[in-house]
């Protein structure tokens, strides 16, 4: 769900129309003392965001970009370091598992306090994860393998799984894995949305009004506060790219992201005011050809499509460098990625060659491609591709649509009603390549996310094997995934044009802004300091 919602939200960012509904929730019953009127704007970190910062503020169910807020308020047991590829302790100090990865034991920190002043114990972890599983919303499926959680001590928790699951990795996810105070667990989603929280993180919510979230530093945070840190943070929606840029230019805001390439280029000139930083992500663009329908079921035809896609133009001119051409389906930086996988290039002669080879008659041939509405970069490369395909005699019909419509079409009972090509933006829920394979490649009984309708028993065996061994034998899993990707490139099962790169514009007044690809769009404001 997250992918789709996020796709929509990204759509929203660029689709200037999708703007914040500035709700006017009262914050009368929000915790924490009233903000001091004496604080000057210099003490405030202002993150200008392209869409509404959250869908819900309920850490148990939020499966969208609300994690960018929640990540600063709640904490998980472990933390994934994308530089080293290792897990680091956060609320847990150490952890271990049995041989087959079915039993996991976590030791917890003993100095953790919730914002309401109560201390965190093993019971809180048990209750939080159980509640998530009980609600069964959002990314709760992550915990499907876990059958039992028990507190084996005041600060020790034991997870029992039905198969060997990487619980340590799952515990680092920014979805469905936050530890929440007991008082908050009993509350409704509405309660959270009113600006209340029950976290252990460095910030508490002071105010939440739909398009704006105000965070206030948690005075008793275990790591303490330095003078150059920001105790007030505002995250506010400004859907216009040019407006976000303006906010940075006037010095009002300190952080902004998802600006249009023109705005980024303009800001790059202003080195005295701002710095433009790019971060690799685990997000990539996927084009899923329909494997159940002529002509996209024909591998040669798919190769022809792949050779006609405008890779370089898209990266250089549409994304203006905010992307790199993918090697395989797993993004760079994540295990399972193999830089040696071959890439398709734009080569219309080769495309023609494969087209002839496929024996598909292009006379009157029309392909439909569905993608999320409102995203300008989609529109741009889709039109470029359309132009290329036209030269091959193929008519590409662009159908930007809302995700629900897109998904409905993809699930139509009559395969002839389904699209020929479908566009996805995909990223994993936690630092593992698994979801690309289990969700998109593995055959499904009823259509869910495998919208290329791939049904390859060989892939299925390899994937199931990799899933079972991921916790215990990662090398085995990795080699399985690489093997699948090799075949996928060969068969051209899925087109993966580019991995996304996020660009942040950061005011020269601050430093320490970093986007960890495992935690898409989250910034640790605690790490941001005044220069």
């Amino acid at each position: 769900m997250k992918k789709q919602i996020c796709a929509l939200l990204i759509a929203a960012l660029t689709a200037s129309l999708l703007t914040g509904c500035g709700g006017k929730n009262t914050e009368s019953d929000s915790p924490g003392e009233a903000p001091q009127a004496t604080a000057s704007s210099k003490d405030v970190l202002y993150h200008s965001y392209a869409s509404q910062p959250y869908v819900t503020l309920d850490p148990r169910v939020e499966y969208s970009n609300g994690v960018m807020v929640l990540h600063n308020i709640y904490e998980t047991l472990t933390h994934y370091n994308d530089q080293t590829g290792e897990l680091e302790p956060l609320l847990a100090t150490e952890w271990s598992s049995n041989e087959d990865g079915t039993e996991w034991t976590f030791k917890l920190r003993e100095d953790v306090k919730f914002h309401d002043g109560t201390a965190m114990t093993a019971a809180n972890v048990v209750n939080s994860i159980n509640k998530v599983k009980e609600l069964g919303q959002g990314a709760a499926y992550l915990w499907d393998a876990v059958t039992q959680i028990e507190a084996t001590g005041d600060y020790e928790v034991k997870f029992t799984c039905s198969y060997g699951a990487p619980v340590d990795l799952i515990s680092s996810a920014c979805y469905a894995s936050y530890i929440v105070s007991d008082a908050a667990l009993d509350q409704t989603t509405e309660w959270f949305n009113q600006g209340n929280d029950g976290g252990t993180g460095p910030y508490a919510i002071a105010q939440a009004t739909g398009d704006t979230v105000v965070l206030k530093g948690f005075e008793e945070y275990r790591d303490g506060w330095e003078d150059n840190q920001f105790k007030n943070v505002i995250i506010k929606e400004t859907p216009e790219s040019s407006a976000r840029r303006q906010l940075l230019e006037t010095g009002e805001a300190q952080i902004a992201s998802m600006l249009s390439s023109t705005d980024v280029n303009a800001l790059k000139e202003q080195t005295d005011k701002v710095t433009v930083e790019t971060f690799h992500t685990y997000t990539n663009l996927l084009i899923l050809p329909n494997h159940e329908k002529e002509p996209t079921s024909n591998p040669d035809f798919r190769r022809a499509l792949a050779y006609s896609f405008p890779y370089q133009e898209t990266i250089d001119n549409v994304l203006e460098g905010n992307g790199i051409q993918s090697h395989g389906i797993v993004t760079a930086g994540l295990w399972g990625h193999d830089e040696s996988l071959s890439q398709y290039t734009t080569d219309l002669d080769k495309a023609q060659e494969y087209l002839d080879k496929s024996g598909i008659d292009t006379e009157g041939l029309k392909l439909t491609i569905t993608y999320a509405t409102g995203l300008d970069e989609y529109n741009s490369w889709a039109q470029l591709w359309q132009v290329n395909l036209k030269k091959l005699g193929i008519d590409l019909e662009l159908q930007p649509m809302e995700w629900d419509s897109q998904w409905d079409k993809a699930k139509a009972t009559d395969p002839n009603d389904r699209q020929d090509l479908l566009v996805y933006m995909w990223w994993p829920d936690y630092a593992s390549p698994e979801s690309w394979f289990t969700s998109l490649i593995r055959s499904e009984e009823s259509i869910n996310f495998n919208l290329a309708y791939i049904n390859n028993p060989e892939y299925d065996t390899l994937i199931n094997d990799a899933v079972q061994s991921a916790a215990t034998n990662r090398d085995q899993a990795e080699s399985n995934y690489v093997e699948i990707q090799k075949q996928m490139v060969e068969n051209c099962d899925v087109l993966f044009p580019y991995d996304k790169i996020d660009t942040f514009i950061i005011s020269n007044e601050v430093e320490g802004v970093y986007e960890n690809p495992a935690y898409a769009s989250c910034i640790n404001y605690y790490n941001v300091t005044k220069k």
Partner: protein
Amino acid sequence: MKNWTDSLKPKIRSMQESFYLLARNRLSLFALVLLCVIVLLAILAPWIIPYPQDIADEAHIADKFLAPSAAHWFGTDELGRDVFSRVIYGGRVSLSTAILTVGISLLIGVPLGAVAGTLGGHVDNVIMRITDIFLSFPPLLLAISLVAILGSSLTNAILAIAISWWPWYTRLVRGQAISIKERKFVQAAETIGTGKLKIIFRHIVPNCISPVIVQASMDMGGVILTVASLSFLGLGAKAPTPEWGLMISTGRTYFPDMWWCCIFPGLAIFITVLCFNLLGDAAREILDPKTRKR
């Protein structure tokens, strides 16, 4: 027929008279000339635009966002396509959509209105109640929700606008029909024994068509604006169709740095709609018997 040219004379005369009245107001004359140019440009667009391949066949992304110059009068867009060519071609899209929309609305609205006005009684009641219901949606809102739910495409937009537009014609024609029904030639036809249908479509409809034409010509502007609005909301035309509203919507991301992507299509909408409105205004004055009375 031997004297068919004679039958044209009064028409020509009445056209001359209309033109005379129109020419009295220089603003309207200007609008008329401009509109003729716009229509002509729209008709000839495929042959006269400098970069016809930029409509759908080609992109030159390396040349994107070139500022207006001699080669590209209105600059180039995000795919390096010539904005001038696309704006001119956009007139073709907008005008044909508007004609189609107004045409469909007229096809629904005029017969209903004529029947309601002429027959009166329960038929009138039922038709007008339905009309009232459709008129109770604020302008655009019904179209928005229809397209939003049916799925966005230019065809759906045309249908949705027509569905929310026809009641205006029904109401107008009904009013006309009621007053024309009172005219003696209708009563004469009735005493002659002419059938109801013939009375409605041969006597009443032709006589209430002038104000309908005026309204329809004014509405062309309104429809162009509405289509553009829907496209702007992402509920109308789709890329790469050079629809003005869509061009603004796309260009907005790059506004204000690449102002030409937004400003020119907007100007095109403004000028076209303005011409229609100015003319509609003038036409209303001309067709008003009070003005015509010599």
